[in-house]
């Protein structure tokens, strides 16, 4: 294995980490409210713009900007659930999906109306992002990439543990299985679900912040966020661990297509992989048909 192979694998790993962050957001929302959130990409953009706004206002203070982005995203997620998804509970699945599409275009036009369609580079505000960190001799990774991979790792390891062990995690799982019973046991299902939406939106925002620092920021990057549903579905919508595998598969296909075929095809690669995967195993690699033993 030559240097080129290893660096290609690093690129795949970074892309996969990015998909992990996005895919887990889809899974969190799906588990909580049985909705495939097609507005996830636009929530990601919105969160990233909040971060950017934070950077502009504080003239480059990263902690403050990240706090702005995360708090704003959490608030947005909770508002979306309480204001939109809660009233639509009990409607057929199609209605939920269509509602998120409608939400997506509303969010997109709001974002464009506030920040215009111009492309920006928040990385300009922060130095040293591209500073290479040497892993082994001859192989290095930029600081921002290292942070992306680390964050994804923390999420893969931490989130399932949180859902399995913590009191709020048990409540989330209970609500997602049987909301009526959870309500009867004194759990305020709406605040639990709002929390799930907030958490998922925060993850989307984090992914958006990373993307805007690494590549660029503009209303058109919603496409990147939308592609995140491919790893989520390949892994199985009700499995957080499945997302990691799905992300690896999608990232591999995408990076290889971009390197060896054509960039146009690479854009569609996640969806092509998804179509093939759904044809082979309609309920995902790790999703359970009976939905017994969720996480």
């Amino acid at each position, binding site marked *: 294995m030559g240097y080129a192979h290893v660096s290609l694998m690093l690129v795949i790993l970074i892309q996969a980490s990015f998909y992990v962050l996005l895919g887990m957001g889809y899974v969190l929302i799906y588990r909580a409210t049985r909705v495939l959130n097609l507005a996830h990409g636009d929530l990601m953009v919105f969160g990233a713009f909040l971060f950017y706004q934070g950077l502009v206002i504080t003239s480059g203070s990263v902690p403050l900007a990240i706090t702005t982005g995360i708090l704003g995203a959490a608030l947005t997620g909770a508002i979306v659930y309480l204001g939109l998804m809660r009233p639509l509970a009990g409607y057929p699945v199609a209605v939920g999906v269509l509602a998120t599409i409608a939400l997506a275009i509303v969010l997109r036009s709001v974002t464009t109306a506030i920040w215009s369609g111009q492309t920006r580079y928040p990385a300009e505000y922060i130095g040293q992002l591209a500073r290479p960190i040497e892993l082994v001799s001859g192989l290095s990774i930029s600081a921002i990439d290292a942070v992306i991979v680390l964050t994804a790792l923390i999420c893969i390891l931490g989130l399932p543990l949180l859902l399995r062990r913590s009191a709020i995690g048990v409540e989330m799982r209970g609500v997602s*299985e*049987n909301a*009526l*019973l959870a*309500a*009867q*046991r*004194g*759990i305020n299902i709406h605040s639990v679900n709002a929390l799930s939406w907030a958490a998922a939106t925060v993850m989307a925002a984090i992914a958006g912040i990373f993307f805007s620092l690494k590549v660029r920021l503009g209303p058109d990057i919603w496409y990147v966020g939308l592609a995140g549903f491919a790893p989520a579905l390949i892994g199985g919508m009700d499995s957080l661990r499945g997302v990691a595998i799905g992300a690896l598969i999608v990232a591999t296909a995408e990076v290889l297509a971009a390197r060896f075929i054509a960039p146009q095809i690479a854009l569609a690669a996640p969806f092509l992989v998804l179509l093939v995967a759904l044809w082979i195993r309609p309920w995902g690699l790790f999703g359970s048909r009976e939905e017994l033993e969720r996480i």
Partner: protein
Amino acid sequence: MAITAGLQVSPTREIEGSAILTVANLEVVYSRVIVAVQGVSLKVPEHSIVTVLGTNGAGKSTTVRAISGFLPVDDAEIRKGSIHFRGQSIGGLPPYQIARFGIVLVPERRKIFETLTVWDNLRIAHVRNDKPSNWNQQAERLFGVFPALAARREQLAGYLSGGERQMLAIAQGLLCDPKLLIVDELSLGLAPNLVHDLMERIQQLRHEFGISILLIEQDALSAIEIADYGYIMEGGRIVFEGSPEKLRNHKDVQEFYLGSGGDGRTSYREVKQYRRSRRWWG
């Protein structure tokens, strides 16, 4: 509360004392047109077991949903009447608030979280402002009452048997610190000896936890055995009520709910005709 303390409250066989739950003249309407329950009044006194009997479609479940706050889910509403719990009106409140007042429902179906372990099923039912130590003590006590659950602590609840599910559901309900426990169809799908056993544990729990219990049942025979008072519902109304003795001695109750008595009628059609023509209180 220790067992002895509970025993001091001797089961009163007549309805008396302060009622913990009062339903007065309740009328519930589905989809704004279909009247499911009309003029239902019932009382649950403190530390008593009250049972509501009736066949399918009698309005039992609607009454339970009205009390526990689940009517809006099915597009139903309380049109008339009131529901008071310890002097406070609870009609129309959302379910989780009613649960926090101390009314806990063990539903008919889907009564446990199948994808959680037995222990998590109990953990999910905690009272917000309760001390953890208190909760642990309660849980251990429940494992004492239901040893079968203690053995399956770390198993997924989806793999429990029907009887164990019922026990888990009741245990879960009790951990919510209820003043009133409503059990919907305890007997559903269970073997008769198991039902008998569960009924006895219910009686034991009433003393140990000092709670009132409202049993919604089709299996009149076993429910009357442990109840202090009973109501019979038919067609959305309460048609008869009284002490267990009174119920047991009523000819029609014997005929239709206890499966005893009867004077030689054999054909089901005859029974149906009779039911349609006879009047209660007659």
